[in-house]
């Protein structure tokens, strides 16, 4: 009877394995989205600033705003989005299986994800990196002075590996305090179970703002890893990847040209700047090339504004996350945000 049970398991497993290989390719995602009348967008189940619920139960945030802009570009209405909340584990299978059309869930662009998992990253909407927060009372000004300190880390993440690499390269000793989730790590640090705590830099500011006395904690200047976060789509549907990529570029270019949610309608009527005219559709045929309507970019920008407006609304100085633009400033303002021209 035991053998029978085992062969049953083997049969199920082999069926699952085969089905994994022959996952159907979803060729014309753009047509699918139009036919469904809604964009299926994969977002986080909750990440401060990037995806969270407001008091009315609507999803908002930096990652959410991108999908609303994409829905605006494709369907003309930023509200036609079906949110699919995904954990770190099931985000990639959800995209592969076609359960979602686009994944906008603070996902780091790496070679293996791009190539091996079969996805196409359409750009970077947030340049993140791994940072550290520690008690001001430690008296350390930089990470290199943290010799022998205990550090709270989330287990099983690249964070842990980056930390080990950095401290080995610099020949400093530390005592890791492994913790299961980010929230528990924050609590452990607050309870003084460790001297410092490390996670993505974007999360550190948010963490600091939750402490009773934020001034007693400092964020260290060193960023020890590159974490370019961006939206991604399935590989093999270049037309859809183009739409997703240029929607993101349109938001960044809109900031460069000073196009905002408030003035986009006015500017769409025509201006003296041919670049703005091409982008907003009063000149040229960029929209048709993408397979979209003439005013696709107008709807994308109208959704939540240009890149700067979105950043300031969810992450910027006036939010409790209070993040600097830093690397995420336009190239003309000292950052590395640089979108190709729209012509």
């Amino acid at each position, binding site marked *: 009877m035991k053998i029978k049970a085992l062969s049953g398991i083997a049969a199920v497993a082999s069926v699952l394995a085969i089905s994994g290989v022959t996952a159907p390719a979803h060729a014309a995602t753009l047509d699918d989205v139009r036919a469904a009348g809604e964009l299926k967008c994969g977002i986080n*189940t909750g990440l*401060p600033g990037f995806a*969270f619920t407001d008091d*009315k139960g609507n999803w908002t945030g930096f990652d959410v705003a991108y999908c609303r802009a994409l829905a605006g570009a494709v369907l003309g209405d930023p509200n036609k989005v079906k949110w699919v909340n995904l954990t770190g584990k099931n985000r990639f299978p959800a995209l592969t299986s076609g*359960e979602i059309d686009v994944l906008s869930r603070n996902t780091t662009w790496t070679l293996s994800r791009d190539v091996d998992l079969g996805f196409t990253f359409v750009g970077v909407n947030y340049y993140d990196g791994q940072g550290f927060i520690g008690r001001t009372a430690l008296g350390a000004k930089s990470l290199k002075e943290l010799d022998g300190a205990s550090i709270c880390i989330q287990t099983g993440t690249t964070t842990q590996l980056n930390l080990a690499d950095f401290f080995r390269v610099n020949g400093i000793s530390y005592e890791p305090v492994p913790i299961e989730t980010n929230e528990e790590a924050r609590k452990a640090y607050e309870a003084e179970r460790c001297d410092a705590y490390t996670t993505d830099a974007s999360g550190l500011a948010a963490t600091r703002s939750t402490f009773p006395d934020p001034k007693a904690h400092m964020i260290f200047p060193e960023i020890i890893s590159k974490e370019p976060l961006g939206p991604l789509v399935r590989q093999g549907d270049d037309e859809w990847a183009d739409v997703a990529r240029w929607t993101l570029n349109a938001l960044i270019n809109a900031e460069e040209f000073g196009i905002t949610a408030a003035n986009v309608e006015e500017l769409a009527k025509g201006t003296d700047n041919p670049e703005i005219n091409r982008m907003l559709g009063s000149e040229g045929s960029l929209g048709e090339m993408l397979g979209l309507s003439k005013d696709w970019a107008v709807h994308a920008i109208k959704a939540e504004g240009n890149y700067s407006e979105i950043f300031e609304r969810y992450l910027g100085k006036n939010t409790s996350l209070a993040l600097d633009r830093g690397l995420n400033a336009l190239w003309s303002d000292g950052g590395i945000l640089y979108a190709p021209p729209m012509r």
Partner: protein
Amino acid sequence: MTHEPFHRTHDDMLSERPAPLATVGVLGWMRANLFSSLANTALTILAIYLLWISVPPFLQWAIFDGQLYGEDRFSCTGDGACWAWLDQRIGQFLYGFYPSEETWRIDLALVLLFPALAPWLMENVPGKRYMRWFSVAYPFIATFLLVGGFGLTEVSTDDLGGFSLNLVVGLSGIVLSLPVGILLALGRQSRLPLIRWFSVIFIEVVRGVPLITLLFVSNIILPIFLPADVALNSVVRVIVMITAFASAYMAEVIRGGLQAIPKGQYEAAQAMGLGYWQSMRLIILPQALKISIPGIVNTFIGLFKDTTLVIVIGLFDILGIARAMVSNPDWLGLSSETYVFVSLFFFVVCYAMSRYSMSLERKLDTDQR
């Protein structure tokens, strides 16, 4: 009067005296239960100490220093718990993303649940016969209320969330897993090889896989098998998977009960000329289920708590809603408060189940040991 017998008598009855102080009342109870031996005394003192260091600070934090009103977490200035979110978020915790003008439908479904359950859980319910018909109709009524159609606004089941999602999934799982579990337990003992093997394979495979994997499979792998236009409802998928999972455990619990019944009972049933189903229904199962009550309720409670796993397929039960809320910059870092709140809900439901099972055991206790 030479030889008086050597005994003493009382002319009157001795008046009753109270029992010694140390054996009655609070003092006696304490002596018997808390300080009966040196080890017990030590444990009592330890327990009192632990309560002393944990309960007052908790009450101080949660109640005396707690702040009930405010716009966001910045308006909570004290050292205590910040309950200000309750005011704005209680709707989400109870109903998820269900449209707020339609939540009366969930309330109504919950109210109707009581008359639907009453004839099964209680004795002496008037009109039990007719009430049972209502119970049978209840799942359809509740589905109609929650999903809509036929005049009511249609609401996507993906919007169902919060505590009502826990209840919908938990109750459906509980109601379905008991009969399925009984059938599997009987199937495992069947003399028909096909049925026996099916039951064994089902139980062993499902029990050998974590529930989170089953949910994951239902969400990610099933859509690959099925044609693209067949969209399985995610709540239905969860209910099916949780039911399957709980039934496998249930089957083993009930098998334990079945094996505890003396062989004489089976033989007696056969001697009475009862067929298989009759003997099961009238003789074996009533006894086996009674023995299994603690195990069955144990499985129910486990199942109910497992409903929090639906977050892995993107549904927001009460715990998921709590996590999503503490990601809002306005409410960042309030996880302690929300977890306390959520555990309160689970405790109430699970404790009620456990108390009910205890009273049921007492009622059915025929002292057959």
